[in-house]
């Protein structure tokens, strides 16, 4: 029996292998650790492609239900590539979600152990006044680029057209501004302890 700390240090493939080789529903620590690692990535994928927080959260649940079903059934052929499997499942389910709406209810009805996926994702957040203060310290052009990127949802060529500079300059300035912001803002407020993917 592994301790929680050992699960934190386990490779992704080891978690997947443990879930696949255990009787269904008994590798709860490994399942929880796999969820902890990949739920934020699926959420990001969902936010990127579905542009909606609730839809992204739904996607996390759907993808994990399928992933655990497939692992428990021994249907994941290459557990070494569990990240790739989860990404592929995310792509398929996001595409389906876009086409036919949420399948969450039906999937949850099929799945008999919801505890692993019951807790919401503890998303990283930053203290707003601190972010505002840090944003104020940026050169105005960099600040404007971040606002246009993250608030107005503009890609670099559109920002470049608005500011009458080159798209490459926008990308360089954006990257530099984010590095400065991360340094200024410091650690997020709700970062979870994380184990690494290996």
């Amino acid at each position: 029996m592994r301790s929680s700390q050992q699960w934190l240090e386990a490779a992704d493939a080891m978690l997947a292998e443990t879930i696949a080789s255990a009787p269904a529903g008994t590798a709860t620590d490994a399942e929880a650790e796999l969820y902890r690692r990949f739920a934020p990535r699926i959420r990001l994928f969902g936010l990127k492609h579905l542009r909606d927080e609730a839809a992204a959260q739904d996607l996390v649940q759907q993808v994990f239900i399928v992933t655990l079903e497939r692992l428990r059934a021994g249907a994941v052929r290459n557990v070494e590539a569990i990240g790739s499997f989860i990404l592929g499942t995310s792509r398929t389910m996001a595409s389906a979600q876009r086409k036919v709406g949420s399948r969450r209810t039906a999937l949850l009805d099929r799945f008999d152990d919801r505890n692993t996926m019951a807790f919401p994702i503890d998303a990283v957040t930053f203290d707003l006044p601190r972010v505002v203060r840090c944003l104020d310290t940026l050169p105005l052009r960099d600040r404007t680029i971040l606002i246009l990127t993250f608030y107005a949802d503009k890609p670099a060529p559109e920002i470049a057209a608005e500011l009458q500079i080159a798209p490459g300059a926008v990308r360089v300035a954006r990257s530099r501004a984010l590095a400065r912001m991360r340094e200024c803002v410091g650690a997020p407020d709700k970062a979870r302890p994380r184990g690494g993917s290996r």
Partner: protein
Amino acid sequence: MSVERCGRGASFADLVDYWAGDLTGADAAQVEAHLFECAECAKYLEEVVALGHAIGEGMRGAHFQSIVTDSVLNRLSRDGVRIRSYAFEPGQTIPCSVWPDDDLVVSRLRADLTGYTNVGLVLAREDGVEMSRIVDIPIGPETTEIIDAVPAARLRAVPSCRLRLVLSGTREGREQVIAEYGLEHTGTETR
């Protein structure tokens, strides 16, 4: 951790480009695949997205003064931010007020910016007390207007007085005033 790359050598700038929609096709798919293999990059992007979310919250809440573009103003309007706008020609003085339900007060400052660099904007009371200073305003060859957005809450705290906006810049090696604008600030109005 490197400032620019993860332990596996992937570029953090590529992650941001991916998120911003500046990568397409195979490049975007490659970054996406890496995200599902690399906890470090996933964490980085999660923090960047959280920062972006906070910036959005700051904009929607009219928390900071900034030079903005029309596309930002359009987005603010769509988000329900209540904006009061004043348009100025160089040398013009106009009465301005803040209303209790205003979120943001926008000054559209028209000017001939041809040939200027290092453009800055100072807001000062008539007695010379400086209230804000913005430097290095991004302008291009086609810029004819500076759009200054100020939180209404900040202006509500200003009593009735005359204010001056001075737009300056560097041209032919000399710093000079580009245009001045006057505001007859009448404080906070009530309905």
